[in-house]
């Protein structure tokens, strides 16, 4: 897979919100594809990994800098 993940820029959006955006993008992604979600919602740091783990995908990294969470994930199935 490419080293450059598809970036989902959900900063400063409330509805449908970062996790819903990620779910929509994951549905149309290929297995093995990586994505990076940008979010200014601090709740994303917890609810995104919770969903990713529950469905069985992979969280590669989860970092915050200057109020922006960058959560990199990989579709596994």
């Amino acid at each position, binding site marked *: 897979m490419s080293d450059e993940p598809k970036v*989902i*820029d*959900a900063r*400063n*959006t*409330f*509805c*449908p*919100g*970062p*996790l*819903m*955006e990620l*779910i*929509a993008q994951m*549905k*149309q992604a290929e297995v093995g594809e990586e994505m990076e979600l940008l979010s200014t919602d601090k*709740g994303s740091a917890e*609810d995104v990994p*919770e*969903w990713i783990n*529950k*469905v069985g995908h992979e969280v590669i990294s989860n970092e915050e800098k200057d109020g922006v969470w960058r959560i990199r994930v990989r579709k596994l199935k």
Partner: protein
Amino acid sequence: MRILIIGGGMGGTILGNNLARRLKGELKAGKAKITMLSASDQHMYQPGLLYVAVGQMTPDQLYRDQRGLLEPGIDFEVDPVEEFDLDNNRVKTKAGKTHEYDILAIATGSRIVPEAIPGLAENAEFFYTEESAVKMFKRLREFEGGKVVITVGVPHKCPMAPLEITFMLNDYFKDRGIRDKVQLHYTYPIGRTHSLENVAKWATPEFERLGITYETLFNMKEVDGKNKVLKSEEGTETNYDLLIAIPAHKGMEVIEKNNLGQSGWIPTDRHRLNMEGRDNVFVLGDTTNLPISKAGSTAHFEAEAIAENIASIVKIGVPVRDYDGKVFCFIEAGKDRATYAMFNYQNPPDPKPPTKAVHWFKMAYNQLYWASARGLL
């Protein structure tokens, strides 16, 4: 300046009318021309389908003649676009006609794709088309009791619809005197009952007060119609007697076929609302790939910003306004109470407790919409 608007839904219509008023002098002098191409000669008030599904409106109340809604200065043709040639500023229609433009606005909307989930189209009721909303109401009339599951696909149009239909079903069965025989069960894709945190904070205790059960982090995977079981991506399942779905949506096929955007959503600048890499192509309403609500009000407010900008491009050569992400959604909390959520890119909503006054304002807006579409409200 030739301005071409593709789509005669809420976004395209408000844009055309607003623009025609702003450019009245230029249209009269022949310095500007506005053309709208649409797939239908009818304009549907789509939010009304929710009411059709519970027997509060009939389909004929949702339609007006599209030409009659438009300012006289707009050339309107029922001839949908099939090919976009953005490099040469022209489109080709189903009838084989070529339209050249200086500025293009794409407002083709979205569609449900229940077929994306195995078993869903055959076994669930929907209310996102006239036919399905009428069919759903007929099923509700026949329903005498059991478990009703309301389930939600991603992405979907009208973010309040899942909650609204649930609260309206609660009142519908109560009015029929069979609420005690009906279990209402709501599923939602993320870890709370609504994407907007403040809306979820209001809706969750309402569910508990009304005896509506719910399961979060539930994304539809497949429907086993034989055994009446809905299965989730997360590995859980729920049985049902009546399945009501808010299906996932996609943009229109013509957008995908012309490679303008994955799943029919066109990459769009969130403030300028132009297609990424194309200064003379604007995108509005459901057609954008913006991570904001796919709702009529979004299309409305985007249309106003784009109209102001196209008019200023004609008059002074540059756009003047940025879209601030404004969205306004009514939230029906039953048959006779409602609240609303208003927000933009910077400010989250803070919905107030539902009142009868807001519900009656929404009832009034269902009629006022036609003034809105004409660009008067």
